[in-house]
């Protein structure tokens, strides 16, 4: 991670205005979004958008030609620009040929992408942004920090200062008054500008129509008042049919701002009547630039083409815990947030994006709300793989991933050596330092000590049921094996009560996720094979784990990694079919715990949804049902599904980001007044447990499997 990005992160973290604004917004947004979608089935709507956009992207060039033909038949001139340079040259030529001195612009991300304002200014043309947010940042000499709310990072006082400077007045920070000042100032510009530049939210091939969505009305003025209109449109905006616009409109305002529809939706087909510069009414000089600039390349990329389904609603930013902390500027000056990282890689700079992908903690909240159904974290991971492939990996890391992680004995003895040398740092049974990839995780949180004896060495003590209905292979995973072996023992107790025998195949390796997350696909694949083989040999009916990250890897990623290997594809599928997360497995096989015969022991418990369990695996109600079945009082968190900030090695790489996310979680937990925080993920346990311990909190941290085991007899 470069110092440049680190410095930007620190700056953002120290900006109280920014954090306050983003934090409040993150909370409010969810409510208004839910309200706007009330009575609608979001999953159905986004299925349609994803299908329509994907279908359009596949024939992007063909649709561009069709659009050109139809819009030109209606009097517009359409230019298909291969590159940013081509687009810039065309627009500049139009402006110069018509001796344009001032341009009014309504918001266009595509024009930000090619830095159009700079070019115009260099050629003596004033470009006035007319979207209020864009105008504010233009006056401040900044770049947008959010796709929908470009000036979300600024306060009313700052705005008043910039407006006062611009208008030579002394304005107070009164928002309605500031808006009025903008109205007056910009109205003048609208009336005198020689050219209007807009973007578009959709371009309909079958009719040659542009659709533009705004709230302020500036796009209507931009496209109506000046005698020339240039629309700069990224080719991913092309849709096949007019009705496709309806599908986009069903989601875009709801997801972007929680509105059922924006104040204005403008649909322009061809050249329309306008006031010419001599005051008479004539036909507008209408230009449409359809810009490729990396879009067809993205379309031809089998993994990344889904990013073209993006409708730029920015809801992925609004729910992203990292974005809420650092805002947009950390991500660069055009497209921000997770999706911004991906777009930047194709439209602007691959190397920049290569660095930025590190910011994603992989919580998957964005994926859940994306109207384009884009697997944003998946694409970010893929970007990481490609960066690693391009830049290679340091030898020490290669050794760790290829040699140490697959070999449990070696791994554990290295951990032991490491923890011994750090003995002085162990106090109250909590480690202050851990070696290898667990190192450095001690900022603001204590870590549990390494287990004296790993789970693998305690197996002989595990009790077995008298009569076994099924043989269950237990997958430990690093954290359970070496840090929380008691979770394995608890799982054994529960399974025994279900009359199932638990076995622990010793050849099992790490689930491979740490390797995968570092872009080491080969190491991940190697571990997939090793694990599948180990469990096949053990001849088990099912494979369970108490770590949802491991479950996802075993159940989904192994299949993906091995799907092109004929010798392994079927084996991976067969293996995956029988893999279950422990909590889901128990709920399913015991009628939500009712058949377990749990003793009812009072305990007030709150529950934290692990990102992987909730969003990767869709296990939401099961742990809650089990908790209630055990006679516990469940006190829900205000934001149960928000990330705890762990994200595997993320908390090592970005302690400064991980920490505030955890702090918010701890506050939420404390506010419930519960005695126990339960979760179903050892990673979350380590993060939250360490955080609570560091704050000397008396709240217990328990895995759901422990709550169950507490209520069973051996």
């Amino acid at each position, binding site marked *: 991670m470069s110092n440049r990005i680190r410095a930007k992160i620190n700056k953002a973290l120290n900006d109280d205005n920014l954090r306050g604004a983003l934090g409040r917004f993150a909370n409010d947004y969810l409510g208004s979004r839910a309200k706007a979608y009330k009575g609608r089935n979001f999953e159905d709507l986004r299925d349609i958008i994803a299908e329509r956009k994907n279908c359009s992207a596949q024939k992007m060039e063909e649709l561009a030609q069709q659009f050109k033909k139809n819009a030109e038949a209606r009097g517009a001139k359409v230019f298909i620009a291969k590159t940013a340079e081509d687009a810039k040259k065309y627009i500049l030529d139009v402006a110069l040929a018509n001796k344009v001195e001032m341009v009014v612009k309504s918001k266009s991300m595509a024009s930000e992408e090619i830095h159009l304002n700079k070019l115009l200014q260099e050629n003596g043309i004033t470009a006035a942004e007319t979207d*209020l947010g864009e105008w504010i940042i233009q006056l401040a000499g900044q770049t947008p920090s959010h796709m929908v709310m470009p000036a979300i990072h600024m306060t009313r006082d700052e705005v008043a200062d910039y407006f006062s400077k611009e208008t030579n007045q002394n304005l107070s920070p009164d928002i309605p008054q500031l808006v009025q000042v903008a109205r007056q100032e910009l109205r003048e510009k609208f009336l005198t500008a020689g050219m209007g530049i807009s973007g578009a939210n959709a371009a309909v091939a079958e009719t040659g129509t542009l659709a533009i969505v705004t*709230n*302020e009305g500036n796009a209507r003025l931009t496209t109506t008042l000046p005698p020339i209109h240039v629309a700069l449109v990224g080719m991913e905006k092309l849709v096949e049919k*007019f*009705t496709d616009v309806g599908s986009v409109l069903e989601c875009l305002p709801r997801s972007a701002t929680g509105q059922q529809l924006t104040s204005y939706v*403008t649909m322009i087909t061809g*050249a329309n009547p306008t006031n010419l510069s001599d005051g008479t009414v004539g036909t507008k000089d209408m230009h449409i630039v359809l810009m490729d600039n990396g879009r067809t390349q993205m379309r031809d990329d089998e993994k990344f083409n889904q990013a073209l389904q993006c409708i730029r609603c920015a809801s992925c930013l609004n729910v992203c815990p990292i974005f809420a902390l650092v805002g947009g500027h950390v991500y660069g000056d055009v497209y921000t947030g997770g999706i911004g990282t991906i777009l930047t890689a194709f439209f602007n700079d691959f190397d920049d994006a290569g660095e930025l992908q590190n910011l994603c903690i992989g919580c998957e909240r964005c994926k859940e709300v994306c109207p384009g159904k884009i697997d944003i974290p998946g694409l970010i991971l893929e970007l990481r793989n490609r960066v690693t492939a391009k830049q290679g990996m340091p030898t020490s890391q290669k050794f760790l991933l290829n040699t140490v992680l697959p070999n449990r004995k070696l791994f554990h003895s290295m951990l032991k050596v490491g923890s011994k040398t750090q003995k002085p740092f162990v106090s109250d049974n909590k480690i202050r330092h851990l070696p290898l990839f667990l190192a450095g995780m001690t900022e603001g949180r204590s870590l549990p000590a390494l287990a004296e004896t790993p789970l693998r060495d305690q197996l002989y003590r595990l009790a077995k049921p008298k009569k076994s209905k099924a043989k269950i292979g237990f997958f430990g995973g690093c954290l359970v094996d070496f840090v929380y072996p008691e979770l394995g023992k608890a799982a054994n107790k529960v399974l025994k009560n279900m009359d199932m025998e638990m076995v622990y195949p010793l050849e099992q390796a790490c689930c491979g996720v740490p390797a995968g997350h570092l872009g080491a696909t080969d190491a991940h694949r190697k571990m997939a094979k090793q694990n599948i083989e180990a469990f096949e040999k053990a001849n088990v009916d099912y494979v369970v784990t108490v770590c949802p990250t491991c479950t996802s890897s075993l159940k989904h990623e192994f299949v993906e990694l091995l799907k092109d290997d004929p010798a392994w594809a079927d084996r991976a599928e067969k293996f995956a079919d029988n893999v279950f997360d422990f909590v889901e497995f128990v709920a399913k096989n015991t009628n939500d715990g009712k058949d377990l015969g749990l003793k009812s022991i009072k305990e007030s418990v709150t529950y934290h949804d692990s990102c992987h369990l909730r969003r990767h695996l869709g296990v939401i109600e099961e742990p809650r049902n089990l908790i209630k079945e055990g006679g516990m009082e469940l006190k829900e968190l205000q934001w149960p599904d928000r990330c705890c900030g762990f994200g595997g090695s993320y908390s090592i790489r970005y302690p400064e980001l991980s920490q505030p996310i955890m702090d918010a979680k701890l506050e939420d937990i404390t506010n419930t007044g519960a005695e126990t925080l339960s979760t179903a993920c050892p990673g979350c346990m380590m993060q939250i447990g360490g955080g609570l311990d560091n704050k000397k909190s008396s709240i217990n941290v328990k895995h759901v499997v422990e709550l169950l085991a507490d209520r069973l007899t051996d």
Partner: protein
Amino acid sequence: MADFDKLFEQFKTAAEAVSAQVYRVKDLNEAGSLLSTLVEEDGAKKLAAASSPMVDKCLNTANLNIEVKTDDLRKNAEDADFGLSELDMAVAEIGSLQQDCTDLNKRLVSMLPHTHVAIVRTDSLVANLLEAMAKIDEIKDNIPGYMAFITGPSRTADIERVLTIGVHGPVKLKVIFVDNPGGDSNE
């Protein structure tokens, strides 16, 4: 036959939720007198109107003692307090209006003045946005050059996310539904 009473009520609730004012009158005579009242209440001094069958009739029956302009609207709409235009469709669920505004005058009067008064037929109400889009889709081979959906007055939340009504477009939107526009070409 659609239940226009129900659709109207739905529209009214939705449009008021986004800060529009909604009225319903029997015919264009009533629309004219309502317009006079609205102008008076506001203290408006100048009205710019985009000529159309309903707008013309409404102006004929209104009793306006202020400056009324229907031509040279680039100039006249800019300093008018009220803009008057006819809209083509109303979307009940979300309180939106739809307009073919290829006619430049319709755009100028609905954007530049402080208040936009929109006249629309009650029987143009449709249930939801997709229904409205489907209707336009039927005429896509001859799609109007400039169309708009208008939902409430113009708004922004760009400063500290505080909702502020009236940025570049009108600060007020008043919608008059006319049940029986009578005898005009739409009938």
